[in-house]
């Protein structure tokens, strides 16, 4: 048993940032770090993983892996685990990553720690810290197994200045079309020039205090100046001002940006669940009692309709 494997999340060759975060993090455990990438035409990506710490890159290319599908990916991973015996396999806690991890863990009759915000690996054992009850408590859990399996929340590990040899290994293709049991009919990317919520360095969110599309426009204007993703509270999503995929909170997305700006958001416990672990939090709210101020690093008690335009021009100075 040796090596920490990081499953690469990519779509059409676009790698999710969390992959690099996990590669850098894995380097801390002293064990060999390998990136594992399945797809079509993905061998060209190998040097990318070396830059972030991969000593090895397992590349598996076949038509059956062109897009993520649970059946073929699990069959391939099981064969590789049996052949190479990694100590741990980590996935991103994303739509595909948790799906892959869960089905693989059950197939191998193993435990899996999901949505971890911290990880420590040693031989045959993983200690994972999970935020539970919407971040109101933490649970440290131990997963034993060969391999140790876990999914890591995007944005919690730092991309480090580490590199690895990135030696390419090409395991045999062990999955066929017969392993596929889900037909992906279409994938329609969300059209947005802005970064994705869970990957963005800065998130600017608007709540009911935006009062309508005009207020949301101000939020968007500030977001675009900062190269930020736009998010919202449930109130602004339910009002139809923003798409559901932009909801931040317990029943929305969990974000971990460097800066989170909450404009016209009261800071209900369910909203805090999705953003309170951001590195810096700024709040703009007319109500000095708003609970968002309890978690903010910089709060201004003022009207967002007056603050944001001045803020935009001041930032540009």
């Amino acid at each position, binding site marked *: 048993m040796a090596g920490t494997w990081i499953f690469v999340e990519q779509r059409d060759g676009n790698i999710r940032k969390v992959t690099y975060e996990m590669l850098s993090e894995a380097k801390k455990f002293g064990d060999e770090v390998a990136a594992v990438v399945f797809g079509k035409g993905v061998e060209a990506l190998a040097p990318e993983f070396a830059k972030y710490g991969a000593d090895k890159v397992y590349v598996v290319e076949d038509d059956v892996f062109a897009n993520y599908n*649970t059946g073929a990916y699990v069959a391939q991973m099981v064969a590789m685990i049996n052949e190479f015996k990694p100590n741990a396999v980590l996935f991103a806690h994303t739509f595909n990553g948790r799906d892959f991890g869960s089905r693989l863990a059950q197939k191998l009759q193993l435990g899996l720690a999901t949505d971890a915000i911290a990880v420590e690996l040693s031989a045959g054992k993983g200690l994972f810290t999970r935020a539970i009850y919407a971040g109101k408590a933490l649970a440290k859990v131990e997963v034993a197994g060969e391999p140790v399996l876990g999914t890591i929340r995007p944005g919690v590990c730092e991309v480090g200045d580490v590199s690895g040899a990135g030696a390419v290994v090409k395991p045999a293709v062990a999955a066929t079309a017969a392993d596929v049991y889900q037909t992906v009919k279409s*994938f329609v990317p969300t059209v947005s020039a802005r970064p994705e919520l869970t990957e963005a360095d800065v998130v600017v969110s608007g709540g009911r205090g935006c009062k309508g599309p005009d207020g949301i426009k101000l939020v968007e204007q500030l977001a675009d100046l900062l190269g930020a993703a736009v998010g919202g509270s449930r109130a602004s999503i339910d009002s139809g001002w923003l798409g559901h*995929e932009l909801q931040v909170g317990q029943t929305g997305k969990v974000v971990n940006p460097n800066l989170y700006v909450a404009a016209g958001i009261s800071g209900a416990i369910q909203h805090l669940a999705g953003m309170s672990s951001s590195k810096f939090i700024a709040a703009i709210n007319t109500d000095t009692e708003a609970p968002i101020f309890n978690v903010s690093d*910089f709060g201004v008690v003022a*009207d967002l309709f007056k603050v944001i335009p001045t803020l935009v021009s001041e930032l540009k100075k």
Partner: protein
Amino acid sequence: MKVLVCVKQTFDTEAKIELKDGKIADAGINLIINPYDEVAVEGAIQLKEKGVAKEIVVVAAGSDKAMDAIRTALAMGADRGVLVQQDTAADEFARAVALADAIKAENPDIVLAGHVAADDGSSQVPTRVAEILGFPHINVITSIEVAGGKATCSSEADGGTQVTEVSLPAVISSQVSWNEPRYPSMKGIMAAKKKPVATVAAAAADNKVKIVEFSMPPAKAAGIKIEDEPEVCATKLAEWMKNTVKVELK
């Protein structure tokens, strides 16, 4: 067609979490049906209203308290319930084993669930259940069409919307934006009291994940709060963003 819905009893999302003797204190906590599971129940009822589903069975694994989650689903419109008696300390693996065992006995065409439980949820149970039963699965759905022995669902994936088709029987887990769950009517609540709920023992399975310790998140240091004219507030906020956060402008 028989639709089965997995419902978990969870803490109210407003609940204040405290530790007692190193464990999460549950005394006095208001319990609710997991919000995602409520959406799954509503989805099942809508399938019945469309004539796709004939019977809706709800299954919960847990202590006797989980009966409330079953009754809520029955009051919304599900037909009958199964309570799988299991220690609430069962992990995702043990719960999936117990649920799959109970589900197998029901032989449903569609198994609905929430994609994550709002308490210590792991986003694992539905997918694990599917693996045990040898069913395909689709997670985080926002719509479903059932026809010709197949289910076609839209899912909220990272960075876009994915449409996936699977053959039935299948396990399908919900996203909250799928629908708006109905409130149980007075009539529904009365009717629920008479609907049958079977109690079965959980299939034996040992936990795979061990909880080493619970703790509270570190308290956040108090921040700066400014009450002044909006222009002054904006100027100071801009300075903080530039000097402390060191934002980069596009």
